[in-house]
């Protein structure tokens, strides 16, 4: 089966690099699936999970925003942070979720910190979901 090279890079270093059969993820405009031979494309990503299909198995990477770049033979995900599902610290994510929820309850919605707390909550929930998907 044809494969496509995928790399997930963050400012703290590369997180994932491999040849896979299909990449699917959630872009700002909706779900997006990339197969080998896709046209060059750039799309901003939502906070979500990148699913990588390889040899009948699926691997999951949690990404917090960023971009997907497709070229003729490779896909690059540029994210501010990303973790493979087996590397996610679920406990930390749970704590972050609690903190964010607490902050959301305390503040008024027009506050700047409200948006930050909301984003933090989404990141934490995303990490927890990604970690669970593997099981």
């Amino acid at each position, binding site marked *: 089966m044809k494969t496509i090279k995928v790399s997930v890079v963050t400012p703290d270093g590369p997180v994932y690099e491999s040849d896979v059969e299909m990449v699917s993820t959630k872009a700002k405009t909706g779900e997006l699936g990339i197969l080998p031979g896709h046209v060059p494309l750039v*799309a*901003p990503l939502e906070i979500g999970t990148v699913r990588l299909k390889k040899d009948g198995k699926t691997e999951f990477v949690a990404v917090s925003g960023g971009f997907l770049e497709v070229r003729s033979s490779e896909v690059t995900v540029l994210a501010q942070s990303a973790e493979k599902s087996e590397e996610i610290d679920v406990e930390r994510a749970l704590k972050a979720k609690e903190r964010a929820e607490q902050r959301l309850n305390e503040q008024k919605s027009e506050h700047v910190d409200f948006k930050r707390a909301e984003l933090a909550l989404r990141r934490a929930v995303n990490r927890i979901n990604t970690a669970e998907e593997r099981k």
Partner: protein
Amino acid sequence: MASLRDIKTRINSTKKTSQITKAMEMTSAAKWNRGVMNAKSFVPYMEKIQEVTASIALGAGGVSHPMLTHRPIKKTGYIVITSDRGLAGAFNSNVIRNVHQAIQSRHKSNDEFAIIAIGRVGRDFFVKRGYNVVLDIVGINDQPSFQDINHITKTTVNMFSDGTFDELYVYYSHYISAISQEVTEKKLLPLTDLAGGSHKLTSYEFEPNAEEILEVLLPQYAESLIYGALLDSKASEHAARMTAMRNATDNAHELIRNLTLSYNRARQAAITQEITEIVGGAAALE
């Protein structure tokens, strides 16, 4: 000539100092290794994001964005990256001197520029002289992660967008090797030298469209430039401190050697004098 006991005391205290500087050299060496590794692992991300940004900004003709356009300069922003602690040789003073000279030659009044100080040494210097420091950040840890400094970069990029300043420079110490670092000035905003790399531009399809992607991509690009400068500066800081501490240790050893020599001379002189006195005393009795 100093007495035997004085010399002995000096030797001991110099020895203690050399132990301390030796230990500091070793901690810096460890931090320097990590710092260089961090800076290296950032390179792939930087290259990629630069490539994509260049392809979009230059490829999709007619795309404009506030961060790409020059506007009349009323105020200039300077990001100055220094360390929180001293004892790093000329590391901080080099950066500060360069910024100071640039400001002196370019601006006539304090209203024409704003300083964003990262690091305690730089902040103290500019605050003390009454410069306009709009934002200061101290206590960044030695291995900063992107998340740690996220709010700094965001605030800075927002300051450009809301017109606090119309152009932005960053001053930091660029890491070349363990023994050489160079103060570098880089123009961050508006983004100009995007075509810097010689790589081939790919024409992309955009989802949803080029403008909206630039809206998200450019701030992220500018933020990563700041982060890159910070990592670079951290690597330089530890390299500079390591070299400074190694020199200090070497100097202490040299001093100890000289002191030991004069200690031995003084001791020998004392013995000789005693013998002469005894011989003289015996001769007087004959």
